[in-house]
């Protein structure tokens, strides 16, 4: 089992053992991500950041991860400034880029773009989000956050709250958690329920699934409350959006009935779903989650680009 030289397009590309191995490597990377220890396994390596869609956290944490490992980045941060504006295909753009770098990290507004890039590229491709599709490194850092808080991923009761229909992070996360035997509670407005084909896949994996529309009841005995942003553009009516968004607000009143060890997670940016007053409580895990992006992406880049493991 080795990730050396491999693409990571979907969380489905990783076995449970490979996920566990990455989370273990990420844990060891924390002091290097904080800068208290230094190692340069990616010295002389170039990683291309091909961002065809705006991103703050994902791009900066990937760049930080490369730099912390001693590598260097070349970056497309604005697709409008590339030859794609002249009509060059994504395929050709990536093919060209793969001759300049040792690996490519791609974000693109179209679903399946990372899979296409992986076919075009002669070097490993890491998906940093393709449209409403996959965002596997987000899932890895979500899992890392839960594992750090509870020491395990098995048997956790995880409430997925908010937009479960369009939110790409929840689809991959639910898939991964199902493999670890977590109990999933789906909590969303009726219009934003997890699509049936996803539910069927989760059941197929043996996941314990329940649907609970009442947030208070859902939070009752949960270990993790994973909140996603309800996107305004999904609603035709502004009042309807406000009513839905308001009913899923996480604040101290809601958390008063929660387990003391419950953690609140959010892929950020938040738009009012989690009240700022939660930041000061021991429940708030979202800033830790944002930090863990760096060691998790370091662990992945190191596995993909560093020296191959012996016997791997």
């Amino acid at each position, binding site marked *: 089992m080795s990730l050396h030289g491999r693409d990571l397009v*979907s969380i*489905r590309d990783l076995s449970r053992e490979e996920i566990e191995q990455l989370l273990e490597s990420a844990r060891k990377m924390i002091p290097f991500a904080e800068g208290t220890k230094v190692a340069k396994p990616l010295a002389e390596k170039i990683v291309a950041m091909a961002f065809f869609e705006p991103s703050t956290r994902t791009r900066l944490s990937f760049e930080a991860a490369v730099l912390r490992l001693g590598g260097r980045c070349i970056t497309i941060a604005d697709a409008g400034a590339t030859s794609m504006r002249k009509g060059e*295909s*994504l*395929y*050709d753009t990536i093919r060209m880029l793969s001759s300049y770098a040792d690996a490519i990290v791609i974000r*693109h*507004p*179209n*679903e*399946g*773009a990372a*899979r*296409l890039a992986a*076919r075009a590229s002669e070097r490993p491709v890491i998906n940093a989000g*393709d*449209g*409403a*599709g*996959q965002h596997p490194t987000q899932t890895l850092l979500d899992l890392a956050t839960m594992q750090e808080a509870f020491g395990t991923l098995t048997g956790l009761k995880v409430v997925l709250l908010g937009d479960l229909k369009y939110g790409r992070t929840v689809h991959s996360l639910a898939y991964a958690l199902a493999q670890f035997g977590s109990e999933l509670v789906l909590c969303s407005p009726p219009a934003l329920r997890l699509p049936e*084909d996803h539910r069927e896949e989760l059941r197929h994996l043996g996941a314990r699934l329940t649907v609970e529309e009442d947030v208070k009841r859902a939070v009752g005995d949960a270990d993790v409350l994973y909140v996603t942003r309800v996107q305004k553009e999904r609603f035709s009516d502004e009042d309807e959006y406000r009513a839905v968004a308001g009913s899923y607000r996480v604040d101290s009143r809601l958390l008063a009935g929660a387990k003391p060890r419950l953690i609140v997670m959010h892929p950020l940016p938040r738009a009012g779903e989690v009240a700022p007053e939660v930041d000061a409580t021991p429940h708030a895990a979202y800033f830790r989650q944002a930090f863990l992006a760096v060691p998790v992406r370091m662990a992945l880049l190191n596995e993909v680009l560093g020296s191959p493991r012996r016997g791997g």
Partner: protein
Amino acid sequence: MPVRELKITPIKNGTVIDHITNGLALDVLRIIGVQRLDKDSTVSVALHVRSGKLGWKDIVKVENMELTSRTVNAIALIAPTATISIIRDYKVREKRTVDLPPRIMGILRCPNPNCVSNLPEPVESEFEVSERRPVVLKCAFCERRVDDFLRHLA
């Protein structure tokens, strides 16, 4: 008194697609692309024919045409019970059942309008067969599940 039967005339050269699921002959014709046929070819369609095996079935006969494997794969998607006979000089030279391959290339469009395979990129659409009974496909690019093939023929 003998019963008069109206039969489809035999063809000299071409293909007979038999045991098509009742009601799907016109969709099979759509897949074959009859508009692309030789203008002198005759196409015969029999709908709702008694069948010992299926109860009722449809039959399509196309003169002067042998199907490509791509077309056969597409027929397998919508009519898995179909059999295909290649006729040469009025005789059945080859008879086979349709078989669904593990990957379906180029026949369908991904129903996800935001899928990269719907952009002008130098790639064919591609689906993996993720379930066989009933057939469910998964887009090799965006992972969208597809089970309503007729609506998404390319």
